[in-house]
């Protein structure tokens, strides 16, 4: 495994910065895309947010103190970017974030970058009804299969609280899918 401190030094050193950032991009672009896409649902939006995320990562590298792992720090930036994007888009359309997500889910059937069927759409509709935190926990655990410890580091919550959140989320989703 790459020494993270050394890698961060390479990212900060103007001589090695470009090559180190290329490595960072190739390591994280797919997992971060998937994380962002699960939040914003649409490919074009995910593309915008992913680009902004990497630009922010580059800009704030100097202030990265290494208190958390680079992985969780980047996921945190991506999560904030995605949530801010959703809220701004909803505000721009004069609707709530939940209504916006519902609208996007309704459009998923016609989305050429979505190959899910009825059960996937139903699952997305059930997720939208969850509180924001439960949505994030469920998506990170179920779709991205991140460990509780990793999710805890990203969201700054305890593992116990996350397990409870995930459990509640699963119960609500099962209830929704059963009754719809």
């Amino acid at each position, binding site marked *: 495994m790459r020494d993270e401190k050394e890698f961060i030094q390479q990212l900060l050193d103007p001589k090695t910065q470009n090559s180190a950032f290329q490595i960072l991009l190739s390591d994280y672009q797919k997992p971060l895309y998937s994380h962002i896409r*699960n939040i914003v649902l649409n490919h074009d939006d995910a593309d915008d947010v992913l680009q902004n995320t990497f630009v922010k990562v580059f800009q704030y590298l100097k202030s990265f103190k290494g208190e958390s792992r680079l992985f969780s720090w980047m996921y945190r930036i991506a999560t904030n970017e995605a949530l801010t994007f959703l809220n701004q888009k909803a505000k721009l359309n004069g609707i709530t974030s939940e209504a916006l997500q519902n609208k996007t889910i309704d459009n998923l059937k016609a989305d050429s970058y979505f190959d899910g069927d009825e059960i996937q759409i139903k699952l997305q509709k059930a997720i939208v009804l969850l509180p924001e935190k439960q949505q994030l926990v469920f998506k990170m655990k179920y779709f991205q299969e991140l460990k509780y410890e990793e999710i805890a580091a990203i969201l700054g919550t305890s593992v116990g609280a996350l397990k409870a959140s995930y459990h509640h989320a699963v119960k609500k989703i099962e209830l929704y899918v059963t009754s719809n």
Partner: protein
Amino acid sequence: MKAFKLENEPKITAGFKTPDHYFDDFSAKVLKQINEGEKEVKVIPIYKRKKVLTTLVAAVTVITLMIPIINNYNRTSKELDEATLETYLSYQSNLNQYDLIKELDAKDIDKLNKNVALEQETLEDILSSNPNLESLISE
């Protein structure tokens, strides 16, 4: 109806796809954006500077709130304007014209002579038309 249990079902994927070769040129796209951002001189419009805006709003608010106070201060100023003084002297005061005349000194009379410069002819007219001429002369 059979209860739906996530753990009993085959894993449900999110179902999201990316365009072909999306990740091939993604890093180039990001690096280009970063380089362009570095070259650009960052211009921060004044309206985006929260601090400036807050100060501006605070200053305008204070000035607006002070307008009635300043107006009120001017109105309650201790200096009396001429009209008020005149009205007071005419209607409220016990002073009569004799009291006023008593207060006049040589300088004031001189001033009055200059201010009320009556022509000889006008003076004669007044004197000839005044029925109390005799009493005035005796005074």
